[in-house]
């Protein structure tokens, strides 16, 4: 191996089905030990690039061009299966996105790691391979590697599983490591650790890395060079620092602008990318005014400013963001326990604590963010606030309505006052219903004609034309679906809007648009917003107050800027440092 030969060389790679070309002749090289990021939005072709290199394209797709791996003369695209099998897992290795499904659920993880060495005969026997596997698990910093080796995948957390995948990929000291969105499915704090691990490991071993992600922050964290993909082409290729600070291609520029939630234009709005399908309506033009009754009921808001508090270890329960008088939401001593599934008729199932002794207020008109990782209890809290779930103990009042023990009849008014926007743009709209029926669903006792009119107006308010009413959800993009969700939530003129990870599943460009829309509408409708997210950046942009929730408890709460800048609780500190702003990223990269 001479320094001049690149570890990976891709030339004019085209991938497509007979009807449709997906990659339009991309070329790039990765030098030995170089860490390269491949960034792009969903559908840009970045995963296809990696699967082409590995020779694992689906049978229905054809690839042309050449792919050369260092030291191998043959073109990987034309190499025999036998040859590829010898290279895969040995000279080149890959880590996939879904840690939940990428491991065989019926096989102990140690055996799965050992297998890769057995397959390539890099260890002499089963015992040696098993032993090596334990060492490798230690290398990827799994606690108790010997025990972990005997665990089944489901007994490990997502981050741990991804470490196992990494151990497996690095077992035979490959020259090239491909990582396809290795941390996307992980919590923020875990994500940071795994990224650091990947970076350390490849640096130590001089392994070349191709890291595929949609997240600029991830690239900035690990990579030296970045390739930007857009609709099957590589549109930009350069050192991370340069691309972050001085993007050349217009697409890259917009992508970076949209990713930066701390940077707003002079109207306080996020930078968006051009929207080819639907134009944002002029804010004043067609948006319906709140109805008379709502207008009358709307109080004159005194600006409420939350105190910045934290929960002490073992300390007394704290009432966060306490509001004098009648706030929009008042939660006291809320606990929720679950029985885990698997309980029978005769024996109680194990109890899981979803929420423990949570107390806080939300003032009318406040934009209240709740941030936490998966399993922290934030979704449970959201469900209880919307009366989709009942508290085990404690008092929850929303707009004066007590949630605990309330019957559906008692909740009738409440239902039109509190609405939700969900995360998943696929799952939140019934695929069998037309948009008209979806948006009209929350309306009760409203005539057909009036419903029609209101749906039309509401769609216009979220920037959709009236002619979308007769279409089904699958005909829309993710961002459009989220607009439809928002329209549905707002059609009853609610006073409280709860958003559950409302932008987490969207590409960055669309995310900015939806966030702008939400911000506009919250202002316009004088909504009290409860925004639940794992992403501190989004919350920081949108919310004035944030509560950090961890393990069923609110550990810290205060004005967003204050929490972000001076986190009190160690957990918050960890969260904040794992979610750097674009400026900071650039600073880190350049340093």
């Amino acid at each position: 191996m001479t320094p001049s030969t690149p570890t990976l060389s891709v030339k004019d790679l085209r991938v497509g089905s007979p009807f449709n070309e997906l990659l339009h002749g991309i070329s790039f090289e990765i030098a030995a030990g170089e860490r390269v990021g491949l960034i792009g939005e969903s559908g840009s072709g970045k995963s296809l690039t990696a699967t082409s290199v590995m020779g694992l394209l689906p049978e229905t797709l054809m690839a042309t061009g050449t792919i050369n791996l260092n030291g191998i003369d043959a073109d990987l695209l034309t190499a025999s299966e036998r040859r590829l099998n010898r290279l895969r897992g040995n000279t080149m290795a890959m880590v996939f996105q879904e840690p939940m499904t990428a491991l065989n659920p019926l096989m102990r993880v140690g055996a799965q790691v050992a297998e890769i060495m057995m397959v390539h005969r890099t260890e002499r026997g089963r015992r040696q391979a098993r032993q090596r596997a334990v060492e490798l698990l230690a290398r990827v910093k799994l606690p108790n590697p010997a025990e972990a080796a005997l665990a089944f995948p489901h007994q490990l957390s997502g981050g741990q599983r991804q470490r196992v995948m990494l151990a497996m990929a690095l077992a035979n000291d490959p020259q090239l490591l491909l990582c396809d969105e290795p941390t996307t499915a992980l919590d923020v704090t875990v994500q940071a650790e795994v990224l650091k691990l990947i970076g350390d490991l490849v640096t130590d071993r001089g392994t070349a890395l191709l890291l595929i992600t949609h997240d600029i922050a991830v690239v900035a964290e690990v990579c030296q060079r970045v390739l930007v993909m857009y609709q099957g082409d590589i549109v930009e290729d350069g050192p991370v620092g340069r691309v972050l600070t001085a993007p050349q291609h217009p697409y890259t520029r917009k992508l970076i602008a949209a990713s930066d939630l701390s940077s707003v234009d002079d109207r306080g709005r996020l930078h968006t990318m051009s929207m080819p399908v639907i134009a944002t309506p002029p804010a004043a033009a067609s948006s319906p005014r709140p109805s008379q009754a709502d207008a009358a009921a709307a109080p004159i808001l005194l600006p409420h400013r939350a105190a910045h508090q934290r929960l002490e270890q073992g300390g007394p329960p704290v009432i966060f963001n306490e509001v004098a008088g009648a706030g929009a939401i008042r939660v006291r001593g809320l606990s929720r326990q679950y029985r885990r599934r698997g309980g029978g008729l005769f024996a109680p199932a194990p109890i899981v604590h979803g929420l423990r002794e949570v107390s806080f207020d939300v003032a009318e008109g406040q934009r209240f963010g709740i941030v936490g990782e998966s399993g922290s209890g934030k979704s449970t809290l959201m469900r209880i606030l919307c009366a989709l779930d009942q508290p085990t103990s404690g008092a929850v009042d929303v707009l004066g309505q007590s949630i605990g023990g309330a019957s559906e009849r008692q909740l009738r008014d409440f239902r039109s006052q509190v609405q939700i926007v969900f995360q998943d743009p696929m799952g939140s709209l019934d695929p069998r219903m037309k948009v008209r029926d979806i948006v009209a669903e929350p309306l009760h006792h409203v005539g057909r004609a009036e419903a029609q009119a209101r749906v039309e107006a509401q769609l216009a308010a979220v920037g959709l034309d009236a002619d979308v009413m007769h279409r089904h959800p699958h005909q829309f993009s993710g961002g459009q679906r989220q607009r439809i969700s928002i329209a549905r939530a707002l059609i009853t003129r609610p006073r409280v809007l709860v958003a559950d990870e409302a932008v987490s599943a969207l590409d960055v460009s669309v995310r900015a648009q939806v966030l702008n829309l939400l911000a506009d509408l919250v202002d316009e409708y004088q909504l009290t917003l409860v925004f639940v997210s794992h992403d501190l950046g989004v919350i920081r942009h949108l919310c004035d107050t944030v509560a950090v929730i961890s393990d069923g408890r609110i550990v810290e709460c205060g004005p967003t800027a204050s929490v972000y800048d001076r986190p009190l609780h160690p957990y918050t500190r960890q969260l904040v440092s794992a979610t750097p702003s674009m400026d900071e990223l650039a600073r880190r990269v350049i340093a």
Partner: protein
Amino acid sequence: MVLVVLRRLGVFATTVIVASVVTFLMLSILPGDAARIALGVQATEADVAAQATAMGLDRPAIVRYLDWFGHVLIGEFGTSTVSRQAIGPEITDALGITVILVLTSVVLALLFAIPFGILTAVRQRKPDGAILSGISQIGVAVPGFLAGMLLVTVFAVTLRWLPAGGWVDPGNDFGGFLEHLILPAIALGSVQGAVLSRYVRSSVLEVMREDFIRTARAKGLGAGRALFRHGLRNAAVPVMTVLGLQIATLLVGAVVIERVFSIPGLGSLLLDKVALRDLPAVQGIVLVLVVFVLLLNFLVDLAFTLIDPRLRSVS
């Protein structure tokens, strides 16, 4: 784990009791006078009434149920009103025959279905895969008793290689037992095999799309090796469910093949006893069949727990 088993056992016991009540109620409305059938056409009304009393048919239903089920619990199924022998051994004999027949046919079916199903899955886009898949589709569509009739016609009647029917106890004459077992087991197994191979195929196809198979490929395992090392055990789980259900339905379902081959299995016994209105025997047989199915489900569930570590961690 022990707790899981115990809890399931409790549920199992409850379902058995409920099933016994259902069985009893369903059969207590059988038309046809058992006493009259026992005595025949020449008996007088007085004779028939006396016979009914002797058979305990004039007691209230709840008393009859408790009496019956109480005895069943201690293993006594009562005395047949027709053969006047203890029903228990009759049922056990017939059940033994049916179980041997069904299990043999299932083994044959698996021997066929597993390689065939995998092959059709792996070769699904190739012409030969499509042809083989078509063959299994047609196999599914043929009534089992037709297969039985044709087998008898060819191998027993025309070629005279094997007996046309009947049953020989393996303890008496093992060779004869095998000879009598082959044709019905093939008849029963061929259709089941075709059905199973469809499930194996779809299960393998499904598993081939799993991420962990892709992981295995990325490790350098060839497609076949990845499938064999990682896919088959995973594919086995849904196939086992079907297998359990199949065995359960075959206990009664084998009756058609039993009829074609004149095998005195449990289904045949049931038909005979129903025809004779031998109520205690019918109740016993139905209960045994039902409990057997429940037991089978229970065992399949336990087997899953053994195969799939994810199910073990509940407790």
